[in-house]
């Protein structure tokens, strides 16, 4: 469905995400400036930068949680417009994990995972539960399926949130600072889950300050400041020899202590 508007080019040549000249304004404030970003299928991108640099805004434009003001965004060939139909089509293919988990507190872990597949993919209950069980098992939390989110630790909740997004069988996963709200001892379990997802070939864009994760997993690290992409590169070069002064300063601040 999502590829209905695709050009006749072979699927492998078509980027999973293509952002061209994307800008975002909040009134008079320009939050994103001329964003050009192409993400190939299976590619892992880490976005970093100081707070307020526009990295969250950028990924929130990809699933239209924020409407963008200018330019164009294509997800798996579908041009993301302002109409319900393309927004829904794109959102079905793009999973998102939030800093604050945003699990539905009145639903059990299982219900959190089956709601969207049943309502928006049209799966039956048994089918949706089978998918959910497989993915909850994958994030190693199947034994908590009947609990409510508040009964779980932060790390467990975030793993449920990852499973919930995966239940929609997305082609892309967006992570918006997934470990920033976690106690330090829980960061690893979430990162391990993300690493295993990356190893399975998921296309991922992660806003994170976990530079160890970036080194291990990322195909490209992108540094943003002031709403623009300042520098990008393979993690090996990016960390060893950053080109821009602002990148050096930022890396010095987060790695230097």
């Amino acid at each position, binding site marked *: 469905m999502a590829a209905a508007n695709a050009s006749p080019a072979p699927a492998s040549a078509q980027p999973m995400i293509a952002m061209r000249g994307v800008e975002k304004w909040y009134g008079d404030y320009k939050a994103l400036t001329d964003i050009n970003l192409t993400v190939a299928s299976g590619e892992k991108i880490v976005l970093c930068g100081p707070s307020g640099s526009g990295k969250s805004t950028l990924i929130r434009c990809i*699933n239209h*949680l924020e409407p963008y003001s200018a330019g164009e965004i294509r997800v798996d060939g579908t041009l993301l417009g302002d109409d319900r139909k393309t927004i*829904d089509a794109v*959102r*079905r293919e*793009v*999973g*998102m994990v*939030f800093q*604050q988990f*945003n*699990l*539905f*507190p*009145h*639903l059990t872990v299982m219900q959190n995972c089956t*709601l*969207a597949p049943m*309502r*928006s993919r049209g799966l039956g209950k048994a089918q949706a539960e089978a998918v959910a069980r497989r993915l909850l098992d994958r994030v190693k939390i199947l034994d908590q399926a009947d609990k*409510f989110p*508040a*009964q779980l630790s932060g790390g467990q909740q975030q793993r449920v949130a990852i499973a*919930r*997004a995966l239940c*929609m069988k997305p082609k892309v996963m967006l992570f918006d600072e997934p470990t920033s709200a976690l106690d330090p001892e829980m960061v690893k379990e979430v990162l391990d889950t993300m690493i295993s997802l990356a190893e399975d070939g998921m296309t991922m864009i992660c806003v994170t300050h976990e530079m160890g994760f970036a080194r291990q997993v990322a195909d490209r690290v992108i540094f943003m400041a002031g709403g623009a992409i300042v520098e990008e590169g393979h993690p090996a070069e990016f960390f060893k020899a950053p080109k821009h002064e602002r990148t050096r300063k930022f890396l010095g601040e987060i790695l230097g202590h």
Partner: protein
Amino acid sequence: MGWNEFAFLLRGLQWTVALSLVGFIGGGVFGLAVALARTSGQPLLERVTAGYIGLFQGTPLLMQLFVVYYGLALIGLKLDAWVAVSIGFTLHASAFLGEIWRGSIQAVPRGQTEAANALSLHYVSRMKDVVLPQAFRISLPATVGFLVQLIKGTSLAAIVGFTELARAGNIVSNQTFKPLLVFAVVGALYFVMCWPLSLYGAHLERRFAAASR
């Protein structure tokens, strides 16, 4: 005060219960519509419903019933008393419940709507499955409080000729010359209706709290 008088009071109680149910159901259905309109993001719809709420919160229920029954009759729309009070209580309750629920919907954290959007849940599912259950929980104390007020407010239906509980009490008191006794009984009957509702509200709150622990 004998059995006959007490039976008369009980018939008044029946009317009070019937009027309350009309207010609950009519107010609940239209109140939900008002709350959804108030949070729809459509400026015109939001402004119209805000005006509606302002009008019915800003005028006394007694006057609202008066206008619906006698006022509409003046312009040629003669309504049955029962229809008139049903409309009056529905309008009144839907304005108050609509505003209570509007606040509760907006009190549900933004992240919940964002997560629902990111999962491509459409509006109906987002509201029915995600936002409203949480909003209902937040609104519970205020909702129960208003419904209890509404039960007692039904006494105002006497103005259009209903012999509900308070009016029945008045009549019996005038016949028996024992106002203290009669109104003590009337008060007890109101209490028997309102108190279980408050208890049930508290019970629901405890149950919700337990589920999220």
